[in-house]
């Protein structure tokens, strides 16, 4: 196992952890079934790409066409990626979350994901269509040498900082009274509304926050891969993230991390290992990997629907012996 391989693994793990934490805020805590999650990651990746690339008229880049091309230095592309995810969440959320019934929302978001992919795939002048973007600059490539191992360590460090930041924010949200309100909405939206909670505002907020985090994960990924195309964000990618969350434990940040390590990272590595060991024809293994992921989801939903690390039951300190307080605001 060489350094590049290990670095690759760690960076993928970081990106997946960030993504699953965001999905946990949306689906695990708030109950929003965002089947277009991967689109927000893609938005972040594309945004980071066009923010860091030179205009497509530049000599080395003339084989592709795309909008923008601003050559902005790190960390602006990453911030821009997060911003793009958040901005995209606003129109999508306004259309989907405001009026549609929740089961309908899931379908609408799935359709959105597939059609967004088709649109980008076909509309070449926008983001170079099916061929995708290539030669995307890496963070700090003008300042440091990107070929050595030390750059890999640097990239791992940057990813880890982002993981830490997202984990910190997610933990604060989940463990706060606000997180409790989100969980209440997930459990019974109508009742939460009758208690003065505005479900559309709550969902929109989580859609935007989750979109921003997804966008950040895309920016990190694209800075490492230096290429990005519609084939990297097909809708089954969203399903893997859902699988990770279901396996890890919905509503539990630690579960989300565990799931991210088990499903996307674990499966991908087992697949890679099997391919390297030349077991079976090369195309068969990835196909069977998907079958296994499907079985994994079904198995967990059947035997342990709450996941490896279920949402914790919150017990408050202190004895119940307290005075009766006057409850009514007399008019």
């Amino acid at each position, binding site marked *: 196992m060489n350094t590049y391989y290990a670095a690759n693994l760690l960076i993928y793990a970081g990106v997946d952890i960030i993504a699953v934490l965001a999905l946990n805020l949306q689906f695990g805590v708030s109950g929003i079934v965002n089947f277009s999650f991967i689109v927000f990651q893609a938005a972040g990746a594309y945004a980071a790409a066009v923010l860091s690339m030179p205009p497509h008229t530049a000599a080395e880049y003339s084989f592709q066409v795309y909008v923008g091309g601003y050559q902005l230095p790190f960390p602006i592309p990453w911030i821009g990626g997060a911003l793009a995810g958040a901005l995209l969440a606003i129109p999508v959320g306004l259309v989907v979350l405001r009026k549609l019934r929740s089961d309908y929302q899931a379908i609408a978001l799935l359709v959105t994901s597939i059609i967004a992919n088709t649109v980008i795939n076909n509309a070449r002048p926008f983001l170079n269509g099916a061929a995708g973007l290539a030669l995307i600059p890496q963070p700090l490539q003008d300042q440091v040498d990107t070929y050595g191992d030390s750059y890999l360590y640097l990239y791992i460090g940057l990813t880890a900082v982002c993981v830490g930041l997202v984990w910190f*924010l997610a933990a604060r949200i989940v463990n706060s009274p606000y997180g409790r309100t989100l969980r209440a909405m997930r*459990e019974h939206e109508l009742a939460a509304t009758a208690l003065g909670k505005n479900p559309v505002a709550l969902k929109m907020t989580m859609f935007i926050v989750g979109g921003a985090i997804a966008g950040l994960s895309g920016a990190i990924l694209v800075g490492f891969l230096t290429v990005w195309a519609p084939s990297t964000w097909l809708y089954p990618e969203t399903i893997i993230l859902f699988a990770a969350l279901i396996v890890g434990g919905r509503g539990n940040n630690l579960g989300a991390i565990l799931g991210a390590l088990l499903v996307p990272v674990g499966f991908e590595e087992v697949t890679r290992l099997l391919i390297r060991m030349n077991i079976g024809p090369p195309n068969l293994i990835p196909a069977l990997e998907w079958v296994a992921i499907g079985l994994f989801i079904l198995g967990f939903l059947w035997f342990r629907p709450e996941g490896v690390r279920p949402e914790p039951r919150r017990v408050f300190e202190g004895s*119940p012996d307290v005075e009766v307080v006057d409850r009514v605001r007399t008019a």
Partner: protein
Amino acid sequence: MLVAEDVHRHFEGMHAVDGVSLEVPRGQITGLIGPNGAGKSTFMAVVAGTLPASSGTILFEGEDITRLPTYRRARRGLVRTFQLPSEFARLTVLENLLVAAPQNRGDSLFGALMGKRFWIKDEERLVTEARGLLKRFGMSAKESDYAGLMSGGQKRLIEIMRALMLHPRCLLLDEPMSGVHPRVIEQIQHYLQSLRADGLTILMVEHELHLVEQLCDSVFVMAQGKLIGSGTMASLRRQREIVDAYLVG
């Protein structure tokens, strides 16, 4: 306090509520009775904003709230409970109450991100308040259990306590006693009476007429979407057409 003027609610050509006008007096417990399918629950839903009114006006404390969404009505102090159990199943009993409390600094994205120190005072105050209610309803021992695991009667209590956490001015109770143990019914009854003594206004739908008679200061009767009578329970019992409407359904 709460006034409905010519409220209509139509579903696909069916007139579930067909021109109801009534006034719920302040500081009293008002009953809403009628046969099944009379439109009582629909009327309550329209008043609370869960369903939009097809036409008509609803005034609360003199202000037109007809166009306000449910959550805004709740924030103004007009709080409803549901006919079917509507607990937050995977929240503990105590958490169910805490969710309802307004004015918690941690109950916003900003507050949450500011961290525990920013909101812990509010939280502690509300936990004390919620525990007081739990004690009063004899549910202190259950505070850390999931609400979804409670019995039907306990879920009713949770729902009433939850509504009270909002410090409502007017409570809309949709069959608060159904499925509740007789001993608990007595508790709820006493509690509702003490709330009235504190000045709370209550409008409740109830099937058990003897409960209505004991609790309610005045009663409205609905049948087939219309208001067909009002007065005290005793006076209503003497009116032939009301008794007929009930019996005929």
